[in-house]
């Protein structure tokens, strides 16, 4: 996927989220890293439409289920949740949805801030191969992949350009 295709995927995501955000106040929460950048773009689009919303980002490193298997623990980044979590309608955003384990970790992290009224999931690219029962509510694009493939997402602020590369391992 090139920059234009990513732009389209973001636009698709924005359109679907706008429909919800017009009905009720939502809090957009991006998962670091790259989920936060997708979330920023969604927020910019919501603001442009004049839709008020809250924004936050979380780092889920401390909630991963594979820490004991790693030679080195991932570098922890700051989380920023400044709105009231209790009773909030959260739309959780990540760049890629694969096994679902990151989302599982993010749900645990979010609920440690309080008890949201509802959490929905928005994903820029769904590449399939879930290992736990987690499904997105909003999807920008879907990508056919094999289990062992790598999907490399690069986003402008994080990586200098917008691109998605599929590296096949066959």
């Amino acid at each position, binding site marked *: 996927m090139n920059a234009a295709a990513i732009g389209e995927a973001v636009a698709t995501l924005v359109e679907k989220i706008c429909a919800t955000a017009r009905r009720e106040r939502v809090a957009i929460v991006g998962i670091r890293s790259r989920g936060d950048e997708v979330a920023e773009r969604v927020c910019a689009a919501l603001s442009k439409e004049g839709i008020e919303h809250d924004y936050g980002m979380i*780092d889920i*490193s*401390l*909630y991963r289920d594979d*820490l*004991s*298997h*790693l*030679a*080195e*623990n991932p*570098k*922890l*980044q*700051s*989380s920023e*949740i400044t709105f009231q*979590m209790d009773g909030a309608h959260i739309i959780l955003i990540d760049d890629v949805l694969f096994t679902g384990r990151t989302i599982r970790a993010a749900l*645990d*992290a979010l*609920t*440690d*801030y*309080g008890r949201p009224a509802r959490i929905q999931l928005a994903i820029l690219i769904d590449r399939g191969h879930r290992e736990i029962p987690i499904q997105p509510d909003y999807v920008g694009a879907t990508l056919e992949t094999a289990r062992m493939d790598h999907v490399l997402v690069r986003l402008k602020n994080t990586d200098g350009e917008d691109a998605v590369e599929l590296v096949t391992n066959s």
Partner: protein
Amino acid sequence: MARKDFLDIASLTREEVDHLLDQATPFKELFTRSVKKVPALKGKSVLTLFYEPSTRTHSSFEVAAKRLSADVIDLDVPHSSAVKGETVKDTVDTLQAMRADYIVVRHKMSGLPQAIARQTKASVINAGDGAHAHPTQALLDAFTLKEVFPSPAGKKVLIVGDILHSRVARSTSNLFLKLGVEVGFLGPGSLVPKLGPAGITRFTDFEEALKWGPDVVYLLRVQMERQDVPSFPGLQEYHRVYGVTQERFKQIQGEGTYIMHPGPVNRGVELCHEVMDYEHSLINQQVENGIAARMAVLYWLKPGTSEGEPQHETD
């Protein structure tokens, strides 16, 4: 980049120091959440082994480990086999059999944590060994310093007290020097080491030291248990010569100089009680930062590995 043990400041690279200081911030942020605990060390066990009395460091490690969801087992040394004559090695073999993942140790003998670290697969954290090192104290001090001075290079820190017998002075000054901080030592001539790292300015007179223009005055705790040390002045005498008296406090307050102290404070000895309510006293902040810094250390270490080698699946 992960290590098995955390034993002293001297062996840490600048990169490792920066990494740990950087990581303490997101841990501190957790303390404002409704749930302060995270599951990162769930199922891991942390053993605390304190052969010397400590309330602050001991409970700080315990809170840090619990906030990471580790199980904390305190080996109550004064009441345990230590008094029955069991050697430290035997104790460590026992702990190894209990499959501890982390051992936090304090002992009056310098170098003991290193010796334990060589004997066990567990990660060993030095919580103070003799007059040698107290690396987590240094880390929390540097983290606290960076909160008030994000770029601490070139800032001046005056460390006051019995420098010679203080592992806090040793580790903290070592770490501050690594960060480019200018360090001054003030204390009785016989208790300020003549030798030591370059870049340290030595003082014997408090007024003269204040003229040096320190940004932070770091007061060491007077160790009451070391009162038998010859050449150590009496407590009232200490306060008059090396303490922050009301008079010196006025000057410090006027300059806006920060005050640090590793705790617990002996009021009327290292400082007069007015200092405790001083807006530039960082003493309570140091306590809170101690938990965050120790969480960062626990999260950074990787038990069951040899230094520098990639981790193997152990069980």
